[in-house]
């Protein structure tokens, strides 16, 4: 059974080689079949592994028969299982959408599968150096996918991302060096074991003095967090994301925004919990709401539909990291909320990216200031609405459940709670703005975005393309419907899904799951929706338009962004360790 873990990574890798072969044979169908079969295979394996994960066993497999610390081991626990399922389901929908768009060659599927295999590897690996390798596989395939159009602006966005990501991964390697010098191993499990036994159990640690080791580990935790954290895109490491995610082809945007940034964040999660670095975790409690609020203002100011969505991804990562930071004291509620929001965001953000992508595909217009002349067919709006309701935290969607969980973590600190509530209002307002892509005229009255909550996708089978317009293939419809149904399922059966998926994954199967459909929460979200309409109307006024244009034109230079990476290492090392530190780490009492 444990061999299946290696298969989860090898399957997409093998299929990607077939895609490369298909490129040379000029057989696109071969590439498409290879991609579809490998993803179906991963889903099948994950389904077969359910009983093992249910029993709360941690499956492990030593690659090549070499046990740790010499070899590399793969681990599958509840968290890795649910992250794999998330990645594969969103990957499947993105793949179907790519089939439907019919404009990608075999090499697209090659990089697409490499990206999936790399993400699978980051989730499963139990070795920090191996994690570096898989992160780089993810990175290189994403650079090439982002620049797939070869449009110079897209190439520039991808190159900026490449330089920032390479600098951050160099920081990661420096962190790895410190880890290896202090503990003598790259294995996450062995590092965790050596730290909890007070260090010194691993031979190499004996040579270094205890104080030196502690300092080095505090610094290493900060370096590793920044190294992977750049891809998780929290402030101040978010600067690459809007350009890169807006430049990518639509299915890739969905995969990058929906899954890749969360996988990177889960890597941060694993590293910090192995180092039990509660100080850096506590820093996220402040950094999260700051990220959320800052990015939502930027999102509201955008006029490009995909850039708006990309900024809102940064903002939602703020919520995820805030909830993770709130768990620094050790309570499970923060982790539960964080994972719930990771899952629901992966669904609704990829749904939003794909529905906006479909609208761009149909109308050829991605600028909100120019769209509205010839809107896409009405049924596309339904998919968008499900995603928009979910991201705005309105019932009956998964987003409502997870956002309520996140906000209710901050009862004790009004300042942070206010930041998160303002984010919710701003997000809803930006979604009303984005709905301009699906409406006839932007001068028309407000959409019923907040009122028609109970719309379900249906009656979309009998669609025909209007004459002279590109049609949307059934593959795209299947992808959109699947994501929309999953978004709604999260809102309809929250208790069941939380108890069977989320609670076991964070290692708290018996944690009490608070009821989210209470009158208070419902009224609260109604108030947010009303405020959002007000905010949207305010943002449309001439004066606000000038302010938003000013915000939009604030662009950080590449050099500034690179400097921020270095600054982030210093901030995480100093403040993170002041707040708590690795046991026996820098500044640790």
């Amino acid at each position, binding site marked *: 059974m444990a061999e299946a873990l290696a298969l989860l990574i090898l399957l997409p890798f093998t299929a990607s080689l077939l895609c490369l072969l298909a490129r040379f044979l000029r057989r696109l169908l071969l590439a498409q079949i290879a991609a579809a079969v490998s993803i179906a295979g991963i889903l099948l394996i994950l389904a077969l592994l359910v009983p093992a994960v249910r029993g709360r066993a941690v499956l492990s497999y030593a690659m090549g028969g070499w046990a740790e610390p010499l070899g590399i081991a793969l681990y599958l626990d509840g968290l890795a299982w649910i992250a794999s399922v998330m990645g594969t389901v969103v990957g499947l929908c993105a793949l179907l959408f790519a089939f439907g768009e019919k404009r990608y060659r075999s090499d697209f599927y090659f990089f697409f599968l490499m990206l999936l295999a790399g993400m699978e590897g980051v989730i499963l690996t139990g070795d920090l150096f191996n994690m570096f390798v898989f992160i780089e596989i993810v990175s290189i395939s994403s650079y090439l996918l982002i620049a797939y159009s070869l449009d110079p602006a897209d190439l520039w966005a991808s190159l900026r991302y490449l330089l920032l990501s390479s600098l951050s991964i160099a920081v990661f*390697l420096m962190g790895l060096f410190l880890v290896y010098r202090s503990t003598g191993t790259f294995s996450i499990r062995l590092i965790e074991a050596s730290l909890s036994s007070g260090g010194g159990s691993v031979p190499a640690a004996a040579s270094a003095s205890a104080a030196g080791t502690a300092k080095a580990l505090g610094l290493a935790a900060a370096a590793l967090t920044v190294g992977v954290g750049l891809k998780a895109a929290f402030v101040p490491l978010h600067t690459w994301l809007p350009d890169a995610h807006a430049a990518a082809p639509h299915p890739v945007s969905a995969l990058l925004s929906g899954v890749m940034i969360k996988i990177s964040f889960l890597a941060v999660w694993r590293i910090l919990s192995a180092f039990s670095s509660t100080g850096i975790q506590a820093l996220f409690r402040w950094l999260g709401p700051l990220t959320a609020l800052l990015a939502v203002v930027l999102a509201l100011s955008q006029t490009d539909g995909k850039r708006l969505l990309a900024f809102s991804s940064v903002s939602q990562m703020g919520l995820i990291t805030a909830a993770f930071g709130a768990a620094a004291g050790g309570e499970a509620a923060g982790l539960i909320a964080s994972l719930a929001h990771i899952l629901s965001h992966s669904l609704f953000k990829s749904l939003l990216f794909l529905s906006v992508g479909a609208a761009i595909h149909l109308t050829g217009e991605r600028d909100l200031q120019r769209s509205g002349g010839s809107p896409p067919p009405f049924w596309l709006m339904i998919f968008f609405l499900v995603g928009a309701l979910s991201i705005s935290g309105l019932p009956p969607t998964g987003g409502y459940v997870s956002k309520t969980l996140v906000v209710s973590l901050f009862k004790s600190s009004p300042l942070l709670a206010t930041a998160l509530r303002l984010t919710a209002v701003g997000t809803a307002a930006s979604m009303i703005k984005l709905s301009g892509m699906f409406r006839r005229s932007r001068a028309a009255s407000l959409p019923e975005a907040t009122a028609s909550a109970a719309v379900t996708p249906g009656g979309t089978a009998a669609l025909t393309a209007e004459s002279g317009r590109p049609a949307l293939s059934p593959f795209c419809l299947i992808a959109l419907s699947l994501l929309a149904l999953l978004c709604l399922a999260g809102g309809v059966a929250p208790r069941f899904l939380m108890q069977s998926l989320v609670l076991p994954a964070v290692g708290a199967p018996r944690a009490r799951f608070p009821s989210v459909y209470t009158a208070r929460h419902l009224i609260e979200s109604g108030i947010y929706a009303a405020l959002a309409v007000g905010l949207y109307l305010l943002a449309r006024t001439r004066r606000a338009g000038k302010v938003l244009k000013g915000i939009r034109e604030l662009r950080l230079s*590449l050099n500034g962004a690179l400097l921020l990476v270095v600054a982030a290492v210093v901030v995480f090392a100093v403040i993170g360790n002041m707040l708590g530190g690795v046991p026996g780490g820098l500044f640790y009492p």
Partner: protein
Amino acid sequence: MAAALILLLILTGVAGMILADNLIKKIMSLSILNSALVILFVWAGSLAGSEAPILLAGVRDIVDPLPQAVMLTAIVIGICVTAVALAFVLRIHDSWGTVSRRRLEELRNKEDG
């Protein structure tokens, strides 16, 4: 001494990435940074002994083989990233006729505004 030189190389790489205006120079700085990290790992591994880790009879006091082994992978990855970056710069130069970071950002902003 070795440690100071490696630190100097790392700082050169980071400073070059942040300060250089020419994109080719930024990528060269990235290569310097990557090489410096490779030297760092190999140097640290070499402190453990004095012989190459080829386990024949009579070979004792070997250096730590793990850093060397993992750095092979890091070198390969570094080359891949450099190749991709240079290919992107070439394409950007073909379309916009410049490799200056400042010039490119001006062009981009003009296009958007």
